[in-house]
């Protein structure tokens, strides 16, 4: 009920209610610059945070020379990269080669604009949300960005005119497309719970109370886990980093890039990490709202994003890389059916508990059928391989 009311009353940012005046322009401009600054500072921080945390998890010191306790290391690395020579390999497709880093960067930047960092604030008579844009397509921006960012990786690998990058790019595009389906289905679960695509409505529906309003509990936990795994694979973070496996592909799709091109890929990777952690917080962890002290929204938001980011670093330091067939198995045979079943169960449970129970039992039945089918398929493939071996 609450969700339906919230959905009906949300119609974009209230700042536009009185028409577009000079004040509105200034406010939007300030918000634009602020979002850009948040991403940049977030990336600089995250690079250091990751190196430090991985070092401590590996019982090392990590970078500790540049600046106080080494915290300016990522800035120094960035400056160094920008002063290097930008090479274009001889076999490269120049136009696409130069465009690919930008294509990787832009969607991430755009998708951060819909993340609600706080509730509304009133400045000089203008009431506005603490988010750059609240478009009617809302959370779909995230799916759009993740589907467009495939182009950055894919075109970089192809345009480099070299083999390892191409293999990395082909791996990347297959992996990203595979996990996009599970990602979309879990997002749909949240949209069903909320009844709106607006990110502001999604966080408003989770507002108040002590934790139990959060979508991670309202969706029975599993969709949040699936979403987390799917965005990890989508970003090609460890343990899904087959795309840039150093031992096999010498670095993968960005191997031939130097200087600014490489810096942009690096930037896009970490910006995606920050943005997708923020999306995880928005969709499942209540966005800018904590268990207590509901007024300090932005602070809660930052704390939660940092916690999610730490989980990423932790995973990177802990888990070994998946094999390619394990990756595809996980994506197609486990995550997609599970997210589909959870979508049905959550939607049915949203109507009444009887329907929820019916959907649950139906899903369990389908699960048994599916595992049997997979088993039969596997034995058939093995028999086929055996027959092929035995035939001359």
């Amino acid at each position: 009920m609450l969700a339906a009311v919230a959905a009906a009353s949300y119609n974009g940012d209230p700042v536009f209610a009185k028409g577009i005046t000079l004040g509105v322009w200034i406010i939007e401009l300030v918000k634009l610059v602020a979002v850009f600054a948040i991403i940049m500072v977030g990336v600089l921080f995250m690079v250091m945070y990751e190196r430090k945390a991985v070092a401590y998890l590996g019982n090392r010191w990590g970078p500790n020379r540049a600046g106080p306790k080494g915290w300016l290391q990522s800035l120094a690395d960035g400056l160094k990269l920008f002063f290097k020579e930008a090479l274009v390999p001889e076999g490269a497709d120049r136009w696409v080669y130069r465009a690919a880093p930008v294509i990787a960067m832009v969607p991430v930047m755009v998708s951060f604009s819909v993340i609600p960092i706080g509730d509304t604030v009133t400045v000089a008579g203008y009431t506005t949300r603490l988010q750059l844009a609240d478009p009617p397509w809302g959370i779909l921006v995230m799916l759009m960005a993740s589907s467009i960012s495939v182009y950055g990786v894919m075109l970089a690998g192809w345009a480099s005119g070299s083999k390892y990058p191409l293999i990395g790019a082909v791996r990347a595009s297959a992996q990203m497309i595979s996990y996009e389906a599970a990602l979309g289905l879990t997002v749909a679960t949240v949209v069903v719970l909320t009844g709106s695509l607006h990110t502001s409505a999604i966080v408003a529906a989770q507002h108040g109370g002590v934790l139990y309003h959060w979508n991670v509990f309202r969706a029975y936990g599993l969709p949040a886990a699936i979403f987390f795994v799917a965005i990890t694979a989508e970003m090609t973070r460890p343990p899904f980093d087959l795309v840039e496996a150093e031992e096999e592909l010498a670095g993968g799709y960005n191997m031939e890039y130097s200087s600014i091109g490489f810096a942009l890929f690096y930037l896009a990777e970490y910006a995606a990490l920050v943005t997708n952690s923020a999306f995880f917080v928005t969709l499942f962890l209540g966005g800018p709202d904590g268990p207590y002290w509901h007024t300090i929204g932005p602070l809660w938001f930052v704390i939660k994003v940092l916690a999610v980011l730490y989980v990423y670093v932790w995973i990177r330091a802990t888990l070994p890389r998946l094999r390619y067939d394990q990756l595809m198995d996980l994506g197609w045979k486990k995550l997609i059916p599970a997210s589909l079943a959870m979508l049905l169960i959550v939607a049915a449970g949203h109507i009444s508990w009887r329907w929820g129970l019916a959907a649950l039992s139906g899903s369990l039945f389908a699960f048994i059928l599916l595992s049997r089918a997979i088993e039969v398929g596997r034995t058939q493939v093995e028999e086929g391989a055996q027959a092929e071996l035995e035939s001359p």
Partner: protein
Amino acid sequence: MSFLAATGLAIGSAWALYGVGTALVLAGALGVVLLRNPVHCALSLVTTIFGIALLFVDQHAYFLAAVQIIVYAGAIVILFLFVIMLLGVDRKEARAPENVRLLVPMALVVGAVAVAELLALARLQYWAAGAKSTTQSLSGPGSDIQKLGQTIFTSYLLPFEMTAALLVIAIVAAVALVRRRSQPPPAPPRKSAGALRHPARAPEAPGAAVRPAATAGAGRSAAAATRSPAAAASTPKTSNETREGRAVS
């Protein structure tokens, strides 16, 4: 005064949206037809898709705009690129069709007929071009995804389900074709096996793009052999007109 300015801005932004969308669609379409490199053509197709998404936004069909990008730009053109890269037709294309003399007038006639048909439909029948409205969306206020969902799952339930069944049947058929028991004998051994291991790779179409160049001379003789993509895919010895082949020769 501010009301006038706001109205002016609204109209201006609507026109800008329409103008940019149309320009993107047309530029992309021209690129698809005129560019030589298939990858560039596919990217032009993406441009067209973005333009169409903008036109959807202009029509207040926000959900369709988003889906246009997610499905078409994010999945379908990616698959095109995938196939282009795997088949290794990314540098040489069948540039000279067989019968240019016959094809050009035929293309002109068919194109003219299609344009005339479109214009006639747009003038005569509103179901083809949509009814005209300049002030608001015709289906009334409210979120478009809600209206779309209700329409699909009530009035158009049968076509929707049939489309879904069609897609499932197509997928099952594709899997059945690939997983046939009686497999043709493997291709003649190459110097080194293709480095690419991917389930999407059909055994009949080895990834020519990522195979090491067989000989230096293969690149030169390939120009004649790569008249059609099919030929390029089926003759592994001569299809090495990739950047690798060029670099060696």
